């Protein structure tokens, strides 16, 4: 019997399948967050990744004459207090090959903010959906500074993301390029549905440091160990950044790319492992960060960034299943409980120790 004969039945079936998919997404991400909260946030008092980091405080100023339809939150020329935090995933050793990050908070607080952004090095990501992230977690299997071996073997897209995002011994956090990779809503005052991707680059054009050269690309992506004979310390990058701030403020440009939604958009537009074509989606300046003063270890550690801290119309896109590319942000949005539990656990059990400058490398 064809589906056309019973349109109601067909609609019911579709509804059931969709609801089922959403339920599975809710369940998977819920269980994952629960485990993360218990084992990561409470027992270990750590972030899920990016524990190795340093914060800074300063201000954010929107550009005067933006070249794109404006969202009400983006007021030209407006200046807001701002905090940022640079991090590295997921080892406590700056000389290891790692993805670096910048998290931005448009408020001088540890948590509450109207707008948070989290960005990583690499124009594309290492995973693309909640389902792929769960595989990523499953195949982590860290040993002596090597991890995700099986994951990269199984998923060339993940390996490509790793090569795009890993940085070896950058000279400073402020000369790297950071990307949101995943798209978000962008509903401007014209009410046209658009999607946005963000990036952060140095305000002045300087060459990006730490990019993987041909030699580094011969090393399999899972191998993040320090180079033999490495003389840089475990905290060299954080220390270099703090020193840089002592010399004067550091400026970053925040830029965005827009895509106008259309009915014939492929789902691939949401795939964070695919970059948007820069010719049709040019990067446009949104504003400038002025970082003035480094934060100490404990203040840096007590900061939390959340995807729930986003104005309406700029927030995460809806997700319908664990395979949906947007399920990654759905998952992040639901992980606030883990983030808050970490702060609570730190208050209860004390601050985790600062990373020592010892010879205990590749940790």
């Amino acid at each position: 019997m064809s589906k056309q004969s019973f349109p109601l039945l067909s609609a019911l079936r579709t509804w059931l399948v969709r609801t089922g998919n959403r339920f599975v997404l809710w369940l998977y991400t819920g269980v994952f967050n629960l485990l993360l909260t218990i084992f990561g946030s409470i027992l270990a008092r750590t972030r899920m990744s990016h524990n190795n980091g340093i914060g800074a405080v300063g201000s954010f100023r929107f550009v005067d004459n933006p070249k794109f339809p404006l969202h009400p939150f983006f007021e030209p020329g407006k200046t807001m207090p701002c905090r940022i935090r640079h991090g590295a995933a997921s080892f406590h050793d700056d000389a290891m090959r790692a993805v670096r990050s910048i998290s931005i908070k448009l408020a001088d607080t540890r948590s509450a903010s109207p707008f948070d952004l989290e960005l990583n090095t690499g124009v594309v990501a290492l995973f693309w959906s909640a389902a792929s992230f769960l595989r990523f977690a499953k195949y982590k299997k860290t040993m002596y500074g090597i991890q995700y071996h099986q994951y990269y073997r199984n998923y060339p897209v993940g390996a490509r993301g790793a090569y795009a995002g890993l940085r070896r011994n950058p000279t400073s956090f402020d000369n790297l390029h950071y990307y949101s990779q995943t798209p978000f809503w962008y509903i401007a005052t014209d009410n046209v549905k658009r999607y946005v991707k963000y990036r952060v680059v140095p305000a002045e054009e300087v060459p990006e440091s730490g990019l993987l050269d041909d030699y580094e690309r011969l090393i399999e992506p899972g191998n993040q160990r320090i180079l033999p004979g490495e003389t840089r310390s475990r905290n060299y990058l954080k220390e270099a950044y703090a020193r840089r701030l002592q010399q004067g403020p550091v400026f970053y440009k925040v830029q965005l790319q827009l895509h106008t939604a259309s009915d014939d958009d492929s789902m691939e537009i949401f795939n964070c492992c695919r970059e948007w074509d820069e010719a049709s989606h040019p990067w446009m300046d949104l504003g400038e960060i002025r970082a003035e003063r480094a934060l100490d270890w404990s203040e840096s550690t007590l900061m939390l960034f959340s995807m729930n801290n986003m104005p309406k119309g700029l927030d995460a896109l809806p997700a319908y299943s664990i395979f949906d590319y947007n399920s990654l942000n759905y998952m992040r949005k639901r992980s606030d409980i883990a983030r808050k539990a970490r702060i609570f656990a730190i208050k209860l059990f004390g601050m985790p120790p600062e990373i020592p400058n010892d010879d205990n490398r590749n940790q």
Partner: protein
Amino acid sequence: MAKNEKPPKPNLKVRDEYRECHQRTQITFRHNQRKIWHPRLRSYNHIEFHRSRTYGGFLARLGLFFLEIYDGLKKGYQAFHKWLFPQRDKIYGHPSADTVVSGRITFGQKQKDLDVPISNMHLELWGRAYWGGYRKLSQGVTDRDGRFSLPYDLHYARRWWMRRIWLGIYHTGHEHFTERVVRIPDYTLFTKVPILQGDLVGTEMDLNTIQLFYWEYRQDTPLPRVVIRDHDKDTPDQYSPGRLAAIEKQFIPIELIKVKHLDMIKFAPGKLTYEKMQADYPENLTSCLKPKNPDTPDITRGDDWFGERMMNGMYASDFDRDPRNPDLYWIHYHWNSYDKNPHYYAMPDVDVWFRLKPDGLPLPVRITLTGPLRADDSDPRAKHTFTPEDGAKWQAAKRVARVSGAIYTEVAHHFAGTHLNVEQYAIAAFRNLHLSPIAGLLKSFLRSVVLVNHTADRILVGNGYITSACALTPKGLDQVVMNVMGTLDWKHFKPMIPLSEAHVFAKAANLYWDIVAQYVSDYIEYPPYHERILEHWYEVYRFSEDAVNHSVPAFLCNFLRSALLDKSGKPGPGHSAGWYQTGNRMNLNDDRPVVDGVPRAVSRITMAKEREGVTDADLANLKQVCTYIIFQATFGHTWANSKQYDDIGEVKYCSLGLRFGTGPDGVLGPESDTSIAPDLTRATQMMWWSNMLSRTGYGFITANEDKDVSPHMIEALEKHRAAFADLGFDIDTIQSRTNI
């Protein structure tokens, strides 16, 4: 002879007797049925010339009876299962190019083949539901680099009711042809690669390099042979079920006779005589022709018979003219350069000269034996020449020549010339021909040959029967095989030119060659096939490269090299003198392809990888090589194989080796001296051999038991049934594959 003078007919009386005995002893494959009380053969892989693996005990047979019931039930269940859960040729879901399972398939032999991709391998991505249903999720083929990328529907593959998912790797086995003569590639599952359902999360899931241990070349021999890791469980090819059932029925009665004889030799010495032993086996052509009256001369020991069998019997000899006397024809079996055990068996070099009679059949006029004829002779160069005037010695010399010819025919024509020759093309074909219609043209004819060759390694060559029954050591036998293989090439091959009207072997061979050549040409020129052959020309290129790169070094013996070639290695005045018969032999004018600095026996088919580079000569080469392969795998093998029973089916007439004997004349003693004939054990084993090889059979072109021979080929052959019958050759006996 004047031009309009008709050649005289051969002696009619002899022909009539011959025809009658030929009829009586001809093989029908309908008798020799296994009786219910007969023991069972474990499998064709377990035949042995000592004692094959059979199950004879009552309990074992009872157990086997139940096992057969179990097997029957299992087959029934499998058929029911197939009916209940069909594997439909339909892709479920909506595959997306953004969600793929990818990987690369290469051959899997360490150090040798690891980086050699397998291209055009058919792949299917399957899922199975908890309730048993099969769902095909995707299909495709590997590219030239062995890589594949199969788009599938992620949401469908991850449905909750999907129990497991796997990648099926299929090879094109032999082909099937429907009544409507449509070729259907027969995709047979080669292996399954399981995939964790949870690993399917979108974008690209890479299965990485999948190494298949697939038609790998052996590394322990310079011959192009395939690796068979386990004859029962891990073989690149399989016998068809019909073939296994047929061999068991046909073989068991023969095995039982041999076992009885071996038991008599062991437990009742002296009870078994050569006559009794001979009588236990079915009557063969020469014993049938034995006169009832002892005073009547035995035609099978006569000179006419000798000449006729050398020309048209199992021997089907290559006749050269004598370089020194062009009126005479010459055949020779030279063993002096091969490793031999000189103490027990006589194995002199044999040269026989013939005169062509007016009826067109050869008559032996002189035989020269070079080497020891008695156990106490030691001079390997001692020449002994005999003519018909030498009476009993002449008779004995003919027997030595018959036996030498039988060993040579068995090893050179039969084993090396067809079995191993066909195997080298079978390996190259199965490794590389997948989507090209050439796969459909060849594979049916190439089936099973590697399996039977593997059995022959154990029971015929190496430490098998031949080295136990004649002076050749396993090393010597290997040398013969290597040298013979070094003389075999498809390029410019033509069957022997008939020496006369009576040369029925050559006439039948040429007739058959022309039929196959026409069939091959029609097949390759058929527009849809032609287009696809060009489209997948890279397969032909790889086929050619594998055949050439693994071919043995080209070989020409020292004598022929100095007699035929000039200093530059090209045919010289000796060659153009015309005494050397070129049909059925490697063309000496052709340049040999050089691999690793060594000129190889097998010629290249093409240098072109792409259709754009394919020349008319390449296509002509392709037709020639296909004709050659089919010819050797069918007619070539059938002739050498099926006539063994005629020519080595009577121990005292001919065998696969002669002892020096204890008489004063050594090996030249009379047939009645049983110290010359093979001992009783080897004698019954030889009878078992010739019965087993000639009197069992499955897989004939006209019978087409496995429905894998093209009806066009059968039709073409049927059209010439009468012409073959006129040559005394029954087309129903032509095997469609080299499988025994």
